[in-house]
């Protein structure tokens, strides 16, 4: 076997790979957060009564789901500066371009997840919130969203993991993320297995940490199962609610 462990270990904790992994994670978190911030109000509108705005949002979702992610990245990085001179300045970095492109792209998918999660909440919940005299923003904040989150969490985590891996596409606009760093080292040394293993390790670490985080968040939804609700209620009582 031709696998040099010392190359692997050295690269694993080397600054370029650490920086690449952090960039990958940072870009994913930034893009996904932005996507969710865009998607939430749009999903709330889609969950409400028919309006012209709703048609517009449907068109937005359709458009960004239809365009390939790679094309969006290339468009934002190459074509945008051509159209708007303001993007030719120093501040417009590959990271920023990737952030914009991936946020828009991801927001379209996230709208659909959030919309279906909101519509999965029983219709009586909205009516009950209205009947006790709460205003719309309070109904969403305290009644609809906490319940919708339970439905939205698993597909949202799927999206996050997909997005994490999609960031490797940004290597094409010269962002020094994990895969770019890997490719550079492979091209330099032809030690494929060592450097690929480093990239794989970091992707696995990131995804598994995330799955752990998901488990933690899901503990908040124990009210939805009779046996677990009993445990949760008892625990809270003993702490003195």
């Amino acid at each position, binding site marked *: 076997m031709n696998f040099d462990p010392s190359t692997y270990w050295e690269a694993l904790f080397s600054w370029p790979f650490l920086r690449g992994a952090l960039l990958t994670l940072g870009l994913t978190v930034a893009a996904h957060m932005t996507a969710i911030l865009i998607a939430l109000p749009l999903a709330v509108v889609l969950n409400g009564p028919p309006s012209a705005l709703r048609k517009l949002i449907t068109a937005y979702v359709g458009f960004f789901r239809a365009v390939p992610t790679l094309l969006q990245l290339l468009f934002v990085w190459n074509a945008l500066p051509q159209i708007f001179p303001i993007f030719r300045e120093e501040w417009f970095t590959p990271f920023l371009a990737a952030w914009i492109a991936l946020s828009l792209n991801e927001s379209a998918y996230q709208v659909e997840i959030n919309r279906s999660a909101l519509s999965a909440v029983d219709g009586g*919940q909205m009516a009950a919130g*209205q009947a*006790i*005299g*709460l*205003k719309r923003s309070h109904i969403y904040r*305290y009644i609809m969203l906490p319940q919708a989150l339970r439905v939205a969490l698993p597909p949202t985590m799927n999206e996050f993991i997909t997005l994490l891996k999609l960031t490797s596409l940004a290597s094409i606009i010269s962002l020094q993320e994990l895969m770019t760093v890997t490719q550079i080292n492979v091209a330099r040394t032809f030690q494929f297995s060592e450097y690929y293993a480093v990239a794989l390790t970091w992707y696995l670490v990131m995804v598994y940490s995330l799955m752990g985080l998901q488990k933690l968040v899901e503990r908040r939804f124990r009210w939805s199962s009779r046996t677990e609700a009993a445990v949760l209620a008892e625990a*809270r009582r003993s702490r003195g*609610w």
Partner: protein
Amino acid sequence: MISLKNVNKNYGAFHALKDVSLDIAQGEKVVICGPSGSGKSTLIRCVNHLEPHDSGEIRLDGLEVGAAKDVLKVRRTAGMVFQNFNLFPHLTVLENCILAPKLASGVSDREARKMAEEYLARVHILDQAWKFPIQLSGGQQQRVAIARALCMKPKVMLFDEPTSALDPEMVGEVLDVMGELAAEGMTMICVTHEMAFARKVADRVVFMDAGRIIEVAPPEEFFAAPKSDRARAFLSQISH
């Protein structure tokens, strides 16, 4: 306290309420009955503007129902209890009760808890206050729903088939609580098929069919000698 004048409501081509007029005095208890699809639930949901009516006038404690500026006031004046309880499953019983007082009335956490405990005691379920709704039986959930509505200190209570989703052995505990509420002088509109309850508690029975009020009479009169054929047919069907 409540007045409806020539109220109409359409769902698309379906005319759910046709020129409905009804006046209910403070402290009065009215039971609405009639075959399914007759507009009973629609009527009661128009009173607190869960369903906007299309024409006519509804007034509740001097407020015009439907006026945009008074929507929240209207809903805080009328408490509502639903067929399917509609408790908030992610909140404990106590949290269900204190949510609206804290958010809508600006009551402090301590005060809200104190009030919630008072009302939970009144519906005989204070010992379950720390549980989640899923841990309770249907009858218990419905009593919590009544307490939750009472925590907004409503002047009127609207019951939309409160016992229809319950197992037979749990109907009694909910009707008892409603009877106690009635005895304390609460103004109530109740859509129900519990005719024994109507006989005992109601001041008047309203019979509806196909979106219209067909007959309004005191219960002893309505049950003994219904004036309309449709009411007679309805009563013969539900009293086995």
